[in-house]
C-alpha cells in the first residue's frame, strides 16, 4: 500500500514493509510509517486496527507475547530495532512507554521514579534525588507530591498515578516516549493535564500516542495516522487529516460513520 508521508524534520523512527503476526493472525500488514523527531504523532483507528500493536512493536514490548512475529524493517535513528545485535533492554531505555492503565510499582513515589536509575546502576543519591525532582516537575506532579515522596504510590489518584508513570518514564531520559491511550482511564480534568503535559514535553522528546479519542488526537498531535484492519490507511499533518483527508475511509471514520 502506498502512503504519502510529507513530514518535515528528522525522522526518528521509520518502518518499511512492517508486518506483525500473533501466531497465524496477521495484525499489521506492510506498514510504511515514520515518526518525526520532537513532534507528537497520533495513531487513531477503530479497536483491533493494529495501532497498539504497531506502537508496542517500536520498543519490542510485543516480544513478551507468545507467538508474536514480525517481518519487514523498523528503524530507530536508522538502526534496525529488530536487529540481531540489538538488546531490547537497551532499546527500551531509549524508547520509553506509558500505558493505558496507570501502573505504578508497589513502592514509594520517590522509588517509583528512581527505579529506572537504580537498575541502570546510578549510585549517587544526590544525583538520583535531582533527577527524581526534575522528572516529577516535568510531569507536573512535583508540587502535589513533594511532601510525601516516601508515601505509597498507590495513595495517589488515578490521574496523579499516570503522571507519576510519565515521570518514571522521563527519569531514564529516553529519546522517544510511546503513549498507549494514556488518558483513557482518566477523568476529563486529569486528561486535560496529561494533554497539557504532552505539549510541554514535545520540545525535548519524540512522542507517539495511540488514542481512541479523535478530539484528543486533533488537540495534541502534529501528525495523525489512521489505521484500519492492520493497514496504515493514511498519515499526514493533523489539520489535514481532520479537515481534508485523502482517503474516503479516513473521512468516514473521522466523521463518525463507523468505528
Amino acid at each position, binding site marked *: 500500500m502506498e502512503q504519502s508521508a510529507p513530514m518535515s524534520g528528522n525522522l526518528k523512527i521509520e518502518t518499511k514493509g512492517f508486518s506483525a503476526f500473533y501466531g497465524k493472525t496477521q495484525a499489521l500488514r506492510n506498514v510504511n510509517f515514520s515518526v518525526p523527531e520532537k513532534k507528537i504523532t497520533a495513531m487513531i483507528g477503530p479497536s483491533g486496527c493494529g495501532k497498539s500493536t504497531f506502537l508496542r512493536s517500536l520498543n519490542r*514490548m510485543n516480544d513478551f507475547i507468545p507467538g508474536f512475529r514480525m517481518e519487514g524493517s523498523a528503524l530507530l535513528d536508522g538502526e534496525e530495532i529488530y536487529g540481531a545485535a540489538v538488546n531490547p*533492554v537497551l532499546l527500551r531505555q531509549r524508547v520509553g*512507554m506509558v500505558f493505558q492503565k496507570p*501502573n505504578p*510499582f508497589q513502592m514509594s513515589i520517590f522509588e517509583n521514579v528512581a*527505579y529506572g536509575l537504580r537498575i541502570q546502576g546510578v549510585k549517587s543519591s544526590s544525583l538520583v534525588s535531582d533527577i527524581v525532582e526534575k522528572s516529577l516537575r516535568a510531569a507536573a506532579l512535583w508540587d502535589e507530591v513533594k511532601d510525601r515522596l516516601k508515601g505509597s504510590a498507590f*495513595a495517589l489518584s488515578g490521574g496523579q498515578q499516570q503522571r507519576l508513570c510519565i515521570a518514571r518514564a522521563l527519569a531514564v531520559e529516553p529519546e522517544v516516549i510511546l503513549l498507549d491511550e494514556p488518558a483513557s482511564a482518566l477523568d476529563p480534568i486529569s486528561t486535560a493535564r496529561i494533554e497539557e503535559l504532552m505539549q510541554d514535553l514535545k520540545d525535548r522528546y519524540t512522542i507517539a500516542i495511540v488514542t481512541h479519542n479523535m478530539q484528543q488526537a486533533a488537540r495534541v498531535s502534529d501528525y495523525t495516522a489512521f489505521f484500519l484492519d492492520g493497514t496504515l490507511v493514511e498519515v499526514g499533518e493533523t489539520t489535514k487529516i481532520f479537515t481534508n483527508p485523502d482517503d474516503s475511509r479516513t473521512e468516514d471514520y473521522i466523521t463518525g460513520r463507523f468505528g
Partner: protein
Amino acid sequence: MAAPEHEQGDSLLSQGDHRPPVVAPLSFLAPDPDETLEEQALARSAPPTETTLKNLRRASHSQILRSERLFHLTLRLGGLFILLLFAIVLGVSVVEAWPSIEKFGWSFLWTSTWNPHRHIFGAWTYLVGTFWVTGIALIFAIPIAILSALFLSDYAPKWLVGGVSTLMEMLAGIPSIVFGAFGIIFVVPLMRDHVEPFLANTLGRHFDFFSGDAMGYGILSAGLVVGIMVIPLVATVTRDSLVMVPRETVEAAYALGSTKAEMVYFVKLPAVVPGIIGSVILGFGRALGETMAVLLLIGNQASVPTSIQDVGYTISSLLANTFTYAVIDPLFSAAEIELGLILLVISLVVNTLGRELLLKLMGGRLAGSVGGG
C-alpha cells in the same frame, strides 16, 4: 434470591428496609417489628386464581424480609458457632490449666524444670525447643520456597509448571507422619553421618553452636523436616501472589529497560511481600503446631539446646507423648494444658502482628486477596 432493584410496587417503596438487620444479642429471634398483622395476613392470603406475571411475583415486602432474615439468621448461626467453639476451647483450657496458673504464675514461663515427680513444672525448655524447630524450619523453608515460587511463576517452561504445581499441592497434603518416617530413614542418617560431622569440623571449630556429637536426631533434623513440610505452603501462596502481579506492572518494568532478573527482583518481589508475609505466617503456624514429625525426630529431651546438633522438646510433642498419662495428676495435666494455652496465645499474637504488618505494607490497597493473616 433476586436483587432488590428488580422488585416493584411495595418493595420499591421499602428499599430502605433492606439494610441488614441490626445486630443485637439474640435480636434475630425476636419477631420483626416492621411486619404488621395486616401484612402477615396478606402473606397468607388466598392463592391467585390466574397465572400472570403479577401473581408470580413475590407478594409483599414482608415475604421478602422473611426470606432475607432467614438467610441472615443461618449465616449468623454459623458465625456464632465459630465464636462459641473458640470460647469453649479457651474457657475449658483456662479452667483446666488454672491449678498450674495459680501455683506457678508468670514464673511458669521461664522455669526450666519439668519434674512431675517433684511437682515442679515450667515451660522454658519446651518454649525454647518450639522456637528452635520453628526457626530452623522457616530459615530453611522461606528462601527455597520463594525461589521455587519465582521459578514457577517466571522461569519454568509451561509444561513443567503444571506438573510441579500439582506436585507441590500433593506434597502439602501428605500426612506429617510420612514426613516423620522420611526424616528417620533419610534425614537422620544424612545429618548423623555427613552434615553434623561436617558442621562440627568447620563452623563448629569456632562456634560451639554448630558442634555436637552427631546423633542425627535433634532440633536440626526436626527443623529441616518441618521446613520441608512448610515449603509447599509458602511456595504455593507466594506463587499465587506472584501470578497475580498485574501484567501492566511487569510491562512497566520492562518498558523502563529492566532485564528479566531486575523486573523479578525489584518489581515483582516487592509487590508480593504481603503475600510472602501471609504465607510465612501460615508456615509459622504449621511449624509451631507440627507434632508427629517433630516427635519422631527431635529426640524428645527436656533440655535447652545450646547447639544446632542438640536434642530438644517442643510443646506439641510433649503433649502428644505424655498428656494421656498426665491426666491422672491434676497439677501435671494443668501444666500441660497451660502449655497448650501458651501455644494458642503465641499463634494468636503472631497472626495478629502479621495481619497488622500486612495491612501496613499493603498501604492503600486492600489486604483481602492475601492468604493467611
